[in-house]
């Protein structure tokens, strides 16, 4: 029974594809986190809860008889304003403080969001049906839900659009300038307050897209946001801030790692394995850093 995956090569293919498709979705959430972490120096604990809220928007549309896939357009629009409002209400008061304060503040936001979602949408686990069917490969031995493929494609499209926007548009340039040096940007006439609000809004919008995709691929529940926060934190730690290709690779890597850990160590160690990897990477980075410092001396 152990290491079934090495006896059946098709399982390798299945696990790899599952992992990559899932990883792309994680990467989208992580990119939002990296963006606002880089620009505002805030670690957003409520990231996962924004994702779930985005999912509930798509689910509400589904209940109203609209296909939930339209959620990937509607949900980010609504979530952008939610993010904007959140910035104006709470985040602008902690943005210049130290990291600890902002972690506390976003932790508070996370709790409020969980309770609100529980209050509005109820504590039941819900799913939205996309009815997209399944793609079968290799004589049915590998199956890929089309909804997962759809979500990966949408994630990639949005990521590309965002990169272009950040490079070409005025606001994108302002955001990058603020990320590099907020004070200098301010002196040169960038309205950093507006940039911060927009960044937080964009992050929330990315979460909204991811949430809508999760509503048709996985399940929604008011209290399942935290694992998404942890995963995106992990991806950002590995990839570093402001580096989209690295975020994408590290996202897919995490997806793959999770799937293979599931087969080899067992499902119960799947999330534990992610944490072990995080510790390992942090220790390794420190080790490398200390070597470098010696060399400089």
């Amino acid at each position, binding site marked *: *029974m152990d290491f*079934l995956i090495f006896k*059946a090569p*098709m*399982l390798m293919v*299945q*696990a790899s594809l*599952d992992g990559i498709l*899932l990883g792309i979705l994680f990467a989208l959430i992580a990119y939002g986190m990296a963006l606002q972490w880089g620009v505002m120096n805030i670690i957003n604990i409520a990231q996962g809860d924004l994702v779930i809220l985005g999912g509930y928007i798509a689910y509400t549309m589904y209940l109203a008889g609209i296909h939930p896939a339209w959620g990937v357009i509607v949900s980010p629009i609504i979530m952008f304003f939610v993010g904007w409002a959140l910035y104006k209400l709470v985040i602008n008061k902690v943005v210049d403080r130290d990291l600890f304060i902002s972690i506390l503040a976003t932790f508070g936001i996370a709790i409020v969001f969980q*309770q609100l979602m*529980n*209050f509005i949408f*109820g*504590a*039941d*686990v*819900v*799913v939205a*049906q996309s009815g997209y069917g*399944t793609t*079968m490969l290799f004589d*049915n*031995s590998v*199956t890929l*839900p089309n*909804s*997962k493929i759809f979500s990966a494609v949408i994630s990639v499209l949005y990521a590309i659009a965002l990169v272009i926007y950040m490079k070409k548009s005025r606001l994108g340039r302002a955001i990058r300038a603020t990320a590099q040096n907020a004070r200098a940007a301010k002196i040169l006439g960038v309205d950093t307050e507006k940039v911060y609000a927009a960044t937080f809004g964009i992050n929330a919008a990315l979460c909204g897209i991811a949430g809508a995709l999760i509503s048709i691929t*996985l*399940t929604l*529940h*008011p*209290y*399942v946001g*935290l*694992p998404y926060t942890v995963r995106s934190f992990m991806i950002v730690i590995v990839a570093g801030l402001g580096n989209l290709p690295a975020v994408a690779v590290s996202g897919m890597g995490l997806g793959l790692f999770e*799937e293979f850990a*599931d*087969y080899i160590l*067992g*499902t*119960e160690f*799947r*999330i*534990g394995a992610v944490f072990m990897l995080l510790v390992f990477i942090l220790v390794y980075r420190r080790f490398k850093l200390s070597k470098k410092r010696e060399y400089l001396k």
Partner: protein
Amino acid sequence: MNKLVKLFITSISAITLALVSFTSSFAKVDGEYIVLGSAISLTGKYSSNGVHTQNGYNMAVDRINKMGGVKVGGKSYKFEIIYYDDESNPKRAAQLAERLIKQDGVHYMLGPYSSGLTKAIAPVTEKYKIPMVEANGASRSLFTKGYKYLFAVLSPANQYLEVAIDLAVEKNGGKPVRIAQAFEQDAFSQDVRLGILDAAKRTGSEIIIDDKLPKELNDMAATLAKVKATKPDVLVVSGHTKGALTAIRQISEMKVDVPMLAMTHCDAAKLSKQHGKNSEYALCASQWHKNLSYKDKFFGSGKKYDKDFKKEFGYAPPYQSAESSAALLVFKDAFERANSFDRDKVRDALVDTEMQTFYGNIKFGPGGQNVAKPMILFQVRCKGDTCENKVVAPTKWASDKFYHPIPKWSERG
């Protein structure tokens, strides 16, 4: 000035203290009311099932009060329940149980929702020797601790899916089967797993996949890929509503073919509504179904209960509500047989309970679990796009034939 304030505070505290002691001395039986207490999850992650539980309690209280109440010592009493919201939090539940007993002076308790919270409250009720009839804590470990004041109207968790394995063996011509299983890592699901292990041992069956799902998990793709590769005879999944919904979603998307699929929490997850046709043929463990032919004089039959409940609350009663209503019937019966409000006499009467309710027969085993009522299995069957739960086992109650094996996805429309 300062003196005045102090005097004021002192007198207020004195009055409060006096009030507290005054109310507590009367709270167990207050005038014509028998006061029961319950901590229940009205907010937090168990809030929907918490509300089902509360509705079940309230419905029974109304019904019993309307039909003459509880007769003790030739006098008729009415039930009243003090509720506190435990926020789905075990620590809070235990605190609230203390508060109900010590401050509100409650002498008889009704259980909370879920095994976890019942586990948190049971030591408290045990300490103060307060009889508790609970309807929503099925974990086996509740009944192995030697609690003397805990009574559960429901069947323990390890019995949930044992029947399914027996059924699979029967369908396999009495030969052992190969079982794949995935259980969440929580007290309840792990108890269900122990039941399966027992059944596997008894029938000589082999467990070829034994996955434990972490609580945060909402992706079972890896487990299901293993199932596809190993082709077991039965797939067993238990992980509350999240597990049931995730399993059906991914089984249908990955086109996993298994001859038999057995689960828990199908009706709480509204499986047939949320997944429609994709959930067809799933076999679900349930404490109760409206079509069972049990009867009592308060609610009539299961069907009548279903109708009355719908009229009052606007939705069909899940088994969580039915078993909660049954808990009140048990208390009423015990009070009348004890013919006293003495806690220990009521407790002794509870021990001797042997009755039929619309929910099922009730008789408590030495650990406090209900030993008189079997679990039932229903199967989701669809006509067009509307799906229904049909009772298929045990044979005595079956309204429909068990459909076996599940047709392959390629043959399903």
